């Protein structure tokens, strides 16, 4: 794990005191809300439906036990005993008081955490593969590069007031577990023909009201030009992004309107110019960062589990990922108990996960964009003991990548921008599919639910997506099919007219019936949809 140096710590500490003073001035009235709002947003503090909401950054989703444990303590001390893990690999607290916020930020700073750049039109927390540094199929660990980009993008004065928010993702395997091409910039660390490591760039992806898949803009950027190239991409966007219209201000619109080729031409021109200026950090910097992410001391041990307990065997099959060391796996702790709130964890659960990480995973945890938690390096020989503790705490649901492992945004239960509630749908669908035993039959099926067009719940990228809309003051839901955020990225298509809450749950049941009826061989829902198209599903829904 990256450790702050004295500069990092001094910057974060100074920021806490700066915010303490800003909050004091707001509480005294010398700052108006109009003046204070941009300041609090730069520190991740929103005003939501029931209270202030604080969004804490978890850089590329990696954290250690102490940090997780402090997150749990903050939930208990300042919130109402829980927090919500999000698709941006962050954590949100829903019931924060303005008068407590500086103290919370100070508690976070003590364990090298903050809420800086988790809101506003700046470069946001950089996301990455939740199995980074652990998975068998990666080229290298992408996190040193993500960390380099985090340092470059933190407090970058040129990019503090971009036309709109900016999200970057860095991965290093062909398998995309981080929705890389749905980011403003997606970076894949690759090897070229001569065996040299570099970065492939994608730009102009995103969800929201105009979803777009990022086209590739450069096959290979040498590592000693990585930051310069990223800076060139941002510069062209910063110069020409549509500041006149919030809905057209994301880079995806610029890339789309200019066309990929023209955007690339301008970036290349800027890049050539910037290479002459020598803005690239020296390669020693990446060499300094890399050891923080060195492999822990793996030991040989059992390579198989005892499968005599079928519940345990099912959990192992579903919730573990193959590790690069054959005596280890990455274990996924599901935050999707049947009927539960996707992504919510209590303070006790956070502290338990912290303890388990210390005991079984070299002190390390990851947050997945699918709102679950990963213990990246667990000895196969320890899996049964781990699972037993998870089960006892309600964290052992064996449902990774099934319909019960859905993403749901906070929706109208918490979010001021929502049109409709998302969480109750998630709860009812998981209860229904679990009770009927259908989850098992369906296999991999990615359901994603957003409460409004902003698409925080990734509905465009769901095999099945649900979008909450407002129909004359009543909650209504649009169903869409065929999205994917994996390496075969695609955007879901709307089936037709929307449904009521009961109606959309029935509709999900019906489309899964069509799949079970029509599937061939090992096809997943998505494969069947791609083969047979929308018509049979429409027929079942509206025919």
């Amino acid at each position, binding site marked *: 794990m990256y450790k702050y140096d004295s500069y990092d710590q001094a910057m974060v500490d100074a920021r806490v005191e700066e915010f303490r003073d800003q909050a004091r001035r*707001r*509480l005294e*009235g010398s700052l108006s*809300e109009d003046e204070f709002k941009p300041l609090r947003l730069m520190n991740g503090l929103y*005003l939501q*439906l*029931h*209270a*202030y909401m604080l969004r804490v950054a978890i850089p590329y989703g990696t954290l250690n036990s102490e940090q997780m444990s402090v997150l749990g303590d903050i939930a208990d001390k300042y919130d*109402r005993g829980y927090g919500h893990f999000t698709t941006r690999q962050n954590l949100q607290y*829903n*019931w*924060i*008081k*303005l*008068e407590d916020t500086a103290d919370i930020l100070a508690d976070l700073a003590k364990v090298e955490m903050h809420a800086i750049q988790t809101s506003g039109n700046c470069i946001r927390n950089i996301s990455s593969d939740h199995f980074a540094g652990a998975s068998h199929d990666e080229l290298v660990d992408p996190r040193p590069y993500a960390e380099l980009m985090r340092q470059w993008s933190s407090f970058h004065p040129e990019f503090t007031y971009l036309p709109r928010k900016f999200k970057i993702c860095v991965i290093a395997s062909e398998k995309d577990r981080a929705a890389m091409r749905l980011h403003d910039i997606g970076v894949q660390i690759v090897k070229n023909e001569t065996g040299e490591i570099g970065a492939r760039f994608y730009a102009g992806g995103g969800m929201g009201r105009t979803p777009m898949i990022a086209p590739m803009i450069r096959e290979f950027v040498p590592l000693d030009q990585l930051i310069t190239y990223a800076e060139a991409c941002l510069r062209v966007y910063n110069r020409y992004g549509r500041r006149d219209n919030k809905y057209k201000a994301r880079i995806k619109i610029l890339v789309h309107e200019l066309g990929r080729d023209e955007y690339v031409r301008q970036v290349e021109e800027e890049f050539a110019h910037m290479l002459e200026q020598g803005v690239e950090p020296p390669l020693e910097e990446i060499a300094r960062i890399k050891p923080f992410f060195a492999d822990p001391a793996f030991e040989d041990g059992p390579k198989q589990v005892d499968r005599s307990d079928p519940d345990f065997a099912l959990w192992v099959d579903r919730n573990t990922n193959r590790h690069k060391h054959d005596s280890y796996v990455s274990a996924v702790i599901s935050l999707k108990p049947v009927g539960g*709130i996707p992504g919510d964890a209590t303070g006790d659960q956070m502290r338990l996960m912290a303890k388990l990480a210390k005991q079984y995973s070299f002190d390390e945890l990851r947050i997945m964009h699918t709102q679950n938690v990963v213990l990246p390096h667990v000895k196969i020989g320890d899996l049964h003991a781990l699972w037993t503790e998870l089960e006892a705490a309600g964290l052992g649901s064996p449902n990774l990548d099934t319909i019960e492992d859905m993403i749901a945004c906070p929706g*109208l*239960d*918490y979010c*001021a921008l*929502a049109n409709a*509630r998302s*969480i*109750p749908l998630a*709860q009812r669908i998981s209860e229904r599919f679990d009770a009927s035993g259908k989850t098992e039959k369906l296999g991999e099926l990615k359901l994603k639910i957003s409460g409004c067009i902003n698409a925080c719940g990734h509905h465009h990228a769901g095999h099945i997506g649900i979008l909450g809309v407002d129909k004359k*003051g*009543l*909650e209504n839901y649009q169903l869409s099919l065929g999205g994917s955020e994996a390496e075969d990225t695609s955007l879901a298509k709307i089936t037709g007219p929307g449904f009521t809450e009961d109606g959309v749950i029935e509709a999900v049941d019906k489309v899964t019936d069509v799949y079970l009826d029509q599937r061939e061989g090992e096809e997943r829902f998505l494969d069947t949809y791609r083969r047979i198209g929308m018509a049979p599903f429409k027929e079942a829904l509206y025919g």
Partner: protein
Amino acid sequence: MRVLTGNDLKTGDVIWWTGEGWSRHVDAAADAGETAEQVLAAEEAALRVNVPYVIDAAREADGSVRPAHIKDRIRALGPTVRPDLTLKPKDPEALDWII
């Protein structure tokens, strides 16, 4: 009726204008009528409310107040998915009121 609502500046709590002050209970809300905008500006300036706005609501036969929009009903009660954290954790019918 025209009801004034916003959040408490310090705590962020959802609050409702009672005619004399602010309450966390929507049923205590008063009809601010024509004076709504005026009260709103004065109360905001006095730091007694943050980001206030005016909504339409109806006084029910039993005297309770029902905001016209579901968003304000959820604000008034609390998250429907955590009845334990709403203002009426023990009332099994409280959630029906939202819809």
